[in-house]
């Protein structure tokens, strides 16, 4: 297991998302109201890049004709066939047992801490003043 820096926090402000690559893996990173989520980028259906999808809320219903909307921004809709995935678990909404995107635990650490090591920064240097998104693999 090693800690990998995937992005500077400032690169993915609230309401945005980014595709990152760590050790050959593609991870879609989302910032939903300050909370960070990471799931594997490849849609398990036909391979669309989830990082290119639209984040949406969860639509449910109590009875026909009634729409309930909750958890704004916490689901990603695949850019191709619109399958929804829960950013907290990576599970698809339509068939959560069979289709899921692997979730990754992300944390935010200060450059100061990271400089002390050990960590792996594949594409950029680390500045002690900034904050970084880190995944442990």
């Amino acid at each position, binding site marked *: 297991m090693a800690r990998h820096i995937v992005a500077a926090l400032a690169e993915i402000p609230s309401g945005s998302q980014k595709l990152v690559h760590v050790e050959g893996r593609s991870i879609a990173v989302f910032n939903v109201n300050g909370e960070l989520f990471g799931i594997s980028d490849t849609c398990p259906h036909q391979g669309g890049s989830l990082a290119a999808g639209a984040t949406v809320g969860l639509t*449910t*219903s109590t009875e026909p*004709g009634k729409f309930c909307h909750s958890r704004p921004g916490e689901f990603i809709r695949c850019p191709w066939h*619109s399958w929804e995935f829960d950013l907290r678990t990576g599970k698809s909404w*339509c068939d959560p047992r069979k289709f899921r995107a692997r979730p990754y635990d992300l944390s935010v650490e200060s450059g100061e801490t990271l400089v002390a090591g050990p960590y792996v920064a594949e594409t950029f240097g680390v500045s002690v003043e900034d904050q970084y998104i880190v995944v442990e693999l």
Partner: protein
Amino acid sequence: MSISDAIDCDIHPGVPTIKALLPYMNDYWREAFIARGQDNFQPASYLPNSPIACRPDWRDGDAIPGSNFDLLQKHALDGFGARFAICNVLYGGSFTISETMGAAICSAVNDWVRAEWLARDPRLRASIVVPSQNPRLAVEEIERLAGDRRFVQVLMPVALDMMLGKQHYWPIFEAATRHDLPIGLHAGSLYRYAPTTNGWPSHYLQDYVSNNHAFESQLLSLIFQGVFVKFPELKIVLIESGVTWLPGFLWRARKTWRAVRPEVPWVDESPIDIVRRHVRLTAQPIDAPGDPAVLERVLDQIGSDDMLLFATDYPHWQFDADRVLPEGVPARLVEKMARDNPLATYPRLRETIQ
């Protein structure tokens, strides 16, 4: 393949002329039909003289197919050794533009069936024909007859004034489930809309074959308007819909639902599971391939042995001699189609034999 003691889920007594129904009408309507000289309310979606309307060896001269009780008894009941047979009358009341005339004809048909068919053979059961053109009148008719447990189903043509899942029709579903009556949808159209989305075909043959467009779109409407969420006990029986189109329909329905289900969030399970739970099909016609092995595989794709119901579709011409079912229907399924599935589908049949 000959099957004895089966429950035949689709036979068609024929209304010979409007005169046969007049004794079952009130004074107003009796006078109206006579004074106006109106007859011939056979639906155009089942042309009575077309080959499919009657098997050649079951024809009775120029008589309306199915209108002779003795022949129906001989061919359908004795001929196939039926334990029960469900009478589905296709006649003008279900098709009229006028709601009130439709209701009058439907009521007369139901009373005619009761007096001249059910009363004459204990093996016969019937569907309540209703004027779907006005759901309030349809419910009145269901309420009027529900006490007679020989009526086991509510019957409507499959292509109606509007899509069946709309709330407009929900009172009919409410009454039907309350009275343990499945809704039977029979091939046929009120012709309020073109039989295909490309308009009116030149040929009756294409109209008939295109019935599965109506069956498929009505199933989608029932599923996606949430009818089965609202009425979890509701059973829909597709009658004379054909069978082999079903697997492809299910696959496409699931694929589309997985993509755009937030449009109809009350549908929170796969349409395939919903159809398997709520929908039954009479297995006449099956529209089978020539190769029995392929038929067996297609039937297996349906993924449930509970869905098909045995039917002869008498007197319609769907098969010859006693080959009711094509080769390729596995024996275990024939058993279920002939008895278990009809009993599970029709609660009122079940109570009869208990």
